[in-house]
């Protein structure tokens, strides 16, 4: 089954084809479950004018925040971006555009993009600035707004384990946006902690079937914690 072996050996291969102006969908919630090495590779490549779709934009000096340092991001599509000063500065300077999207709508837009649903209605955001300019329609007497799907030229995903066919599982809440991101990239690249043989992950436990995955690379992860809180 060599045609199904998605494993690549280098980050250059993993992100080959990424070009200026492309849209990149990234999994992760805050710093949890982010494809650290793939983000670093984009920084190394210096690709510019990117539209990045991700719930957050990392922090100063880590995660997607790294791509702000050389102003590689032109536009962020996120639900919450409050964690870094560089972001704030570039936003105020007009160097960076942000499209704030409710968290559930963002997740659903990615899922829809991967699932061939071009648009859907949701009550979320109706009557708020998020609904401005969007079609409103009533179903069963309640108003909803029309939201369109998101797809990316690339999706960058962090999984716990993948087999060589690209079947993935996620660990704990590091799952978050990763499964939807994985479905919505023209090219989906998954960075994992461990690569296993096909069959090691039981078929019904697979979170992301390999059909969505184009490339798999084994990474090593710092897994920085954003807010460490412990019980007394």
């Amino acid at each position: 089954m060599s045609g199904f072996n998605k494993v690549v050996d280098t980050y250059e291969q993993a992100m080959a084809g990424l070009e200026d102006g492309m849209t990149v969908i990234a999994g992760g919630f805050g710093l949890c479950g982010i494809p650290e090495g793939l983000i670093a590779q984009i920084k190394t490549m210096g690709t510019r004018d990117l539209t990045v779709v991700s719930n957050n934009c990392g922090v100063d000096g880590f995660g997607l925040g790294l791509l702000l340092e050389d102003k590689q991001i032109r536009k962020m599509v996120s639900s919450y971006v409050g964690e870094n000063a560089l972001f704030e500065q570039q936003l105020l300077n007009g160097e960076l555009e942000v499209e704030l999207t409710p968290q559930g709508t963002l997740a659903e837009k990615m899922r829809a993009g991967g699932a061939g649903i071009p648009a859907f209605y949701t009550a979320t955001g109706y009557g708020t600035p998020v609904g401005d300019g969007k079609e409103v329609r009533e179903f069963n007497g309640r108003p909803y707004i029309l939201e369109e799907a998101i797809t990316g030229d690339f999706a960058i995903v962090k999984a716990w384990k993948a087999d060589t066919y690209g079947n993935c599982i996620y660990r704990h809440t590091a799952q978050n946006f990763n499964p939807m991101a994985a479905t919505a990239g023209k090219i989906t690249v998954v960075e994992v902690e461990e690569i296993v043989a096909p069959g090691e992950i039981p078929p019904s436990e697979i979170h992301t079937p390999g059909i969505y995955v184009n490339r798999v690379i084994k990474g090593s992860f710092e897994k920085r914690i954003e807010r460490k809180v412990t019980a007394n």
Partner: protein
Amino acid sequence: MALTREQIAMRVAKEFKDGDYVNLGIGIPTLAANYVPEGIDVMLQSENGLLGMGRYPTEAEVDADMINAGKETVTAITGASIFSSAESFAMIRGGHVDFTVLGAFEVDANGNIASWMIPGKLVKGMGGAMDLVAGAKNIIVTMTHADKHGNSKLLADCTLPLTGVNCITRIITDLAVLEVRDGAFHLTERAPGVSIEEIQAKTAGPLVVPDSVPEMVL
């Protein structure tokens, strides 16, 4: 006396019924988890993909892959489930979460809520708040009745950009419990020792005061 944050949280926790699935926002709402009454169990939903959120971890239990929607390290209870953000918001949007408790800058007499954006200040984003107010079966807003300058947060019409429309039915403040219906705030309880006059003075929107307004039991 106006309630403390902890006392507001205690009053919020009295709303829970055994078996409720509850999503608690950051701040006072989160504190409510500490005051769930004896004999009542609730299961906490964290919108980053965890149903059955537990206590904070011990130092040994800390795991970067286990966080809550506030990005804090956390644990899961026995019987928890973990899922994607799409599944998490399917639960929320689909009305499967029984209770959402969240803070607000303003609520108005039509049940509109403003909680995410103050024009002129940097906008950080709405996170999951818009989904939560659009989806939950019951929403409780917790906030101080007035801001630190004494300006009422219970208005005839919200002045700030909205988080959701026509969705808030119950408010628990440091001064009172109110229901929102028929274009007015209906006072149902007052904080111990707080006068109706004070509540009237600090409620800018239309307020309906019944003949008898009991004090809260905390």
